[in-house]
């Protein structure tokens, strides 16, 4: 069975500090991977997508970056956090760009 794991579960970070969020998918070869962000009380917005190792495309510019160092790993990071980065970050996978999606359990980030 496929599993998707995100870490950490939650973070409280200071403005200007670095951030690294991780996502691992097991049991599925070469999935499409996505990062989504949700402001508190808001809807979900796609940030990045990746269809293969080493290739990541940005959808929205939020002073964040993403990388896919391995087939089953997706990393979201920034060197300097902003207050506006607070929210809920979700990783997701799908077999193809237009098939159904499975989301991870998310990372809640508070920037102070």
């Amino acid at each position: 069975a496929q599993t998707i794991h995100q870490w950490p579960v939650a973070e409280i970070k200071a403005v200007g500090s670095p951030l690294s969020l991780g996502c691992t998918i097991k049991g599925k070869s070469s999935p499409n991977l996505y990062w989504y962000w949700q402001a508190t009380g808001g809807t979900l917005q796609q940030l990045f997508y990746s269809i293969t190792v080493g290739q990541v495309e940005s959808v929205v510019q939020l002073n964040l970056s993403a990388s896919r160092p391995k087939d089953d790993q997706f990393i979201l990071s920034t060197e300097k956090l902003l207050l506006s980065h607070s929210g809920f970050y979700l990783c997701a996978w799908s077999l193809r760009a237009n098939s159904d999606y499975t989301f991870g359990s998310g990372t809640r980030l508070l920037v102070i």
Partner: protein
Amino acid sequence: GQQVQQSPASLVLQEGENAELQCNFSSTATRLQWFYQHPGGRLVSLFYNPSGTKHTGRLTSTTVTNERRSSLHISSSQTTDSGTYFCAIVSNTNTGKLTFGDGTVLTVKP
């Protein structure tokens, strides 16, 4: 661009009542998915339903693609159904971008 509109924005029910959630989208969608978000944040897929009717337990999803609408029916609601329900469509088949509606916040009271 692609838009997804959900209604109502919020809904309060007494346990045992039924609920009907609506989703309208701005152009013909090839993929539509309903999600449930737990109060703690976890997002769970309920239905992957690009067209037709699907059932699971007390939930029924009906999508009429050429009318650009989908509905989610919850029968005999329970307090554990409380949370936020999102409708989402694939708005870009190259990027796999899911465009989400603003969600319906459901509260079921005992």
